[in-house]
């Protein structure tokens, strides 16, 4: 469970990026964070990854206050978070396989485990046949799928996606969202920051809107513009047969 308790963040420049923001995200939820540029979405993500510390309030992950975590423990927290970015952030000197394997190497997985798991994850994102290609040889949608494979390979409790479809055409955006939804159905919490109005409207997931640092809306099955202030309790979805294949260890 992720909980923001009266979180405010003021940068040294005096900018109030977040003001008294409180919300809770249960394990296994799929949440869109929306808002204009500069509204505070990125700050919210940075607080979750401990890139920034709140000026006041608490950020709790499974009741653990990550805003007070010691800097040397930050990498271990990040191993539980899969990050997906608008610009993919792949290492272009490494192959697709190596880009995904790299995330496992960092957490100290054995070569045997890497050789076993990476092909499975690449199969899930539909890129097993491109394992030896360099990222520059792939389309934008394919590169984003590599990034998702890297994010999910360590089986994180949370996937944070910052504008994951920002550089993609509608077809690829659709495919990426389907993939993230599929990962979510296997129990992983997914938080997506986006400007993509169509996507948010179509997905009918929970929407948290930030405006000028304030949480202005929290809709359970919201749309980009529609306001529905009553938030129903989150009901964890039943894991279906397709989802069994999402978690690599379930396959292996």
């Amino acid at each position, binding site marked *: 469970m992720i909980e923001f308790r009266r979180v405010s963040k003021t940068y040294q420049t005096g900018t109030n990026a977040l003001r008294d923001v409180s919300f809770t995200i249960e394990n296994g939820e799929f949440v869109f964070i929306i808002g204009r540029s500069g509204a505070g979405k990125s700050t919210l993500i940075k607080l979750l990854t401990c890139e920034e510390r709140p000026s006041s309030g608490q950020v709790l992950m499974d009741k653990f206050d990550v805003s007070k975590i010691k800097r040397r423990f930050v*990498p*271990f927290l*990040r191993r539980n978070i899969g990050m997906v970015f608008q610009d993919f*952030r792949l*290492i272009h000197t490494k192959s697709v396989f190596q880009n995904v394997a790299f995330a496992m*190497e*960092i*957490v100290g*997985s054995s070569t045997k485990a890497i050789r076993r798991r990476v092909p499975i994850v690449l199969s899930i994102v539909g890129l097993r046949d491109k394992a030896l290609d360099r990222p520059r040889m792939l389309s934008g949608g394919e590169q984003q799928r590599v990034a998702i494979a890297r994010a999910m390979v360590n089986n994180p409790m949370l996937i944070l996606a910052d504008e994951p479809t920002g550089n993609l055409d509608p077809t690829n955006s659709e495919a990426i969202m389907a993939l993230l939804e599929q990962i979510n159905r296997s129990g992983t919490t997914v938080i997506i920051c986006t400007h993509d109005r169509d996507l948010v409207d179509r997905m009918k997931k929970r929407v948290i809107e930030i405006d000028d640092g304030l949480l202005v809306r929290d809709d359970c099955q919201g749309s980009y513009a529609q306001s529905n202030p009553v938030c129903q309790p989150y009901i964890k979805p039943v894991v279906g047969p397709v989802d069994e294949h999402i978690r690599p260890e379930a396959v292996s």
Partner: protein
Amino acid sequence: MRATLLRHSLSEGLNNLVRHPLVTLASITTIALMLFMLAAFSIFSLNARQMMARAGEQPPIEITLDIGISEDQIASITAELESNTNVRDFQIYSPEENFETFKSNLGQDELFSDFSADYIPYTYAVRLIDPAGSQNFKDQLEGLNGVRKVALEIRVMEFLSKAIIWVNYATLAAFIALGVISFFIISNMVRVAVFARGDEINIMKYVGATNWYIRIPYILEGAFAGLIGGGVAWLAAYLTYMRLFDLFMTRTLPTDVLAMIPPIGIAQIILMLNLGLGIGVGAIGSAVSVRRYIKV
């Protein structure tokens, strides 16, 4: 260290070296220059110490007593030498022995047929433990009754003694100056590597890499540069010394006081010194630099 981390660090460290060859070359050259100078000073110092040790083992101090000195006075001077803690050993030569030596050195005995040993004094040949204390020893002995002269062959020893001190100072100064320069060059090398790979480092941070996972390859890169620089410096110093040895030792016996140490005798010491310091300077320079530029 885990096998995957070790493999990753080694391969990345080596890759970093070839990614920016000119920067790497500058780093290696500076380290090599620093260590070459250090090796040169060390070789001089080692040779000077050996020469001093040999000079101390030779009997360079000759004490000449007054002619016609009494047995009591001789016994008193002998007792003084025996009680002196800086005297390694000594030998007394009678007038007759000195006369024989004199004649045999000249090789013309008939010239001295009318000559008597009565005009020849007693002498002592003394070897000191610490040749640097020769002047004190001389002053002390010349104050004794019956001692006519204390002759020291100390000019060489004085020069060597002073030279060692100055060489030590110069070595220290050169090492500090070149060490600082090397440090900055290595720091720059690491900074270039870190900035060139900024995106990759950011990705590593997001995926959960620890500080050490990110830093170790850069530290190894510095250590590799230091290792290569140390090796180059050793080779250059060794070849130069071999050339000098051949040049100066053609007319000198290996047992002579001024004989140089054979190249093979110093090769190992200088190699260990160069490699150890090269790796140390490279790794520490990188570690400090990478700590400044990479913060998770």
